[in-house]
């Protein structure tokens, strides 16, 4: 962990949804720390709990049937203990969020500028006119040309990339300390993806905002993140700096994930998927959630992988595996 001041500390976060079929345990003891201005990647397959975790950070499950336990400490305040109304002062102001599909994430019936101004006015006592000016200024800062004219436009009149820029303008207009970006480039063209990632990086350098980059794309992680947390079955399997993770993945799941990435350098034309399926979240197994798919579970004595949940351990480079030792990459 770097020496910078800690901004966010998530401890043993659990999110469960009651359904007709039983309780779905989407997040099962998530631990995460983030320094000020740092960028951490949250990677994992679909259903690994990335999005649920990110929405829980903003307290979006307050007032719903979902149960959220654990600590979400932002700047010394445990957000999970706050009421919905107390949380309002944090959302958009100190912790903000952008989403995968900016078209559906913005209101279709209001001009883009007025949506940004509304967020600013929610957290700052300024006139409508002043807020509208701030919105125009912010649209300019995210690289939208002719921002004064575009502020009067509606989301459907923007291109995908411009829309995501406008969404970023909305999320950052109050200069939050933490931005949760939930797959912000997944719905975009590859060339636009790179521009959006660059933009987030630039704004981050200007404002010192920390970013949680939720993605299933390890390429995105490599491009923008300092550290990365690999999620599986609603918990962290491995947390490491980006360089360490790519150079020496410690957890068999991470190793499988990296091995499954197609490489242009290699001659073998076949993808190498991880066999099996992600765990059923209705009925969690007692041991390691990855044990059923793990190529090395049988090498651990006493069947520990299936009976005992390993802890997230290590120094700096953390891994949740009974095999423990790092650098044992196959």
């Amino acid at each position, binding site marked *: 962990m770097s020496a910078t001041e800690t901004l966010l500390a998530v401890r043993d976060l659990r999110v469960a949804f009651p359904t007709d079929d039983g309780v779905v345990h989407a997040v099962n003891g998530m631990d995460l720390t983030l320094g000020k201005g740092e960028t951490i990647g949250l990677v994992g397959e679909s259903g690994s709990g990335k999005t649920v975790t990110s929405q829980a950070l903003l307290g979006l499950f307050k007032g719903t049937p979902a149960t959220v336990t654990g600590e979400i400490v932002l700047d010394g305040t445990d957000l999970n203990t706050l009421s919905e109304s107390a949380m*309002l002062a*944090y959302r*958009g102001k100190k912790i903000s969020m952008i989403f995968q599909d900016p078209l559906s994430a913005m*209101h279709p*019936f209001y001009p883009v500028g007025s949506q940004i101004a509304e967020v600013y006015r929610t957290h700052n006592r300024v006139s409508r006119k002043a807020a509208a000016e701030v919105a125009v200024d912010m649209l300019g800062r995210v690289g939208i040309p002719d921002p004064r004219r575009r502020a009067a436009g509606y989301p459907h009149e923007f291109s995908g990339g411009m829309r995501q820029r406008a969404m970023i303008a909305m999320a950052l207009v109050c200069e939050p300390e933490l931005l949760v970006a939930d797959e912000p480039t997944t719905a975009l063209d590859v060339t636009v993806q790179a521009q959006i990632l660059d933009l987030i990086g630039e704004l981050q350098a200007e404002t010192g905002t920390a970013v949680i980059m939720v993605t299933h794309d390890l390429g995105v992680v490599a491009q923008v993140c300092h550290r990365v947390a690999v999620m599986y079955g609603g918990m962290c399997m491995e947390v490491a700096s980006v360089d360490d993770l790519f150079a020496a993945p410690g957890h068999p799941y991470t190793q499988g994930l990296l091995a499954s990435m197609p490489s242009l350098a290699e001659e073998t034309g076949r993808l190498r998927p991880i066999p099996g399926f992600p765990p059923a979240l209705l009925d969690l197994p007692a041991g390691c959630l990855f044990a059923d798919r793990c190529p090395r579970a049988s090498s651990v004595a006493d069947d520990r992988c299936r009976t005992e949940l390993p802890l997230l351990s290590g120094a700096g480079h953390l891994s949740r595996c009974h095999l423990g030792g790092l650098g044992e990459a196959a």
Partner: protein
Amino acid sequence: MSTVDQAGADVIGFLVRRVAAMIVLLVVISFVTFALFQVGPADPAAAACGQECTPERIDQARIALGMDKPFFVHYLDYLSGFVHSRMIGAPGALTVCAWPCLGKSFQTNEAVTDVLARALPYTVSIAVGAILLWTVAGVSLGLLAALRKGRAADKLIVGAASGGVSLPIPVTGLLLLLVFVSTLHLLPFTSNEISSPFGPAGPLGWFGNYLLPWVALALLFSAQYIRITRTAMLETFGEDFMRTARAMGLPRRRVVFKHGVRAGITPIVTMLGLDIGSLLGGAVLTEQIFSVPGVGFTAVHAAQSGDLPVTMAVTMMAAFFIIVANVVVDLCYAVIDPRVRV
């Protein structure tokens, strides 16, 4: 050219197209109604000639009504009244029917336009109050049910709505009359003297006169508005932009009433527009039950007595209102939803 000018030109083009389509549609409707009348069981001539009808008198009546002419000639005669005034009546006893001429009543020989002008205020009186009542009740209860989804209030409202939908006007109307007029004497029987809040009875008299018809209609219609509002709002609450509004720290009141209602209101506007249009064409059952001589009441009596011009006029007017309501709804869409370009 500015976008505002462009939008203005778009709206005018839209209106021109819609008015042209409306005229075509009205001609088609008039033709169908006219044709249906020819094959109907009622013989207008027999009805018009009075008590003692000899075959000769029926023939005379037929000539006086214009029913001796071939179908198309008769129909075109009728249509010509929309363009200019025309002469109506038996040979030697022709009278002028001023433009716009919708014919004269077979029953009373009164100009049909006068018949409509007399009936319409009653129907408008019923419609105005009923629409206001059911919209306010339906939309607010529907919104409340959506906000309390799955809880007791939701179940109560949805249950009441299911009950309301299955209450036919004759049942509620008669029950209301029985309880509030005959038994409790809280309200007078509906009077056909009162057709406007500006008449001699005053606004209060008008209000009291139409309260029961309003309630009877509102019980039926607000049930539908509760259901459609609840469904539309629940769908809206699940939208991504609602989550965004919360994620940006907007208070719940603002998220629900500004972002939610604005987005969820479209189907309600559609239904309201069509209901207003069809109600102005006559609330047939309500007017019958409460003996209000409005458009619907007039239509029923005209159809029963084979009064072709009055039946035609009421049908055309109802069609006109419904078509206009459709155009207005489409214009409202463009105001509500910037993605809609008319």
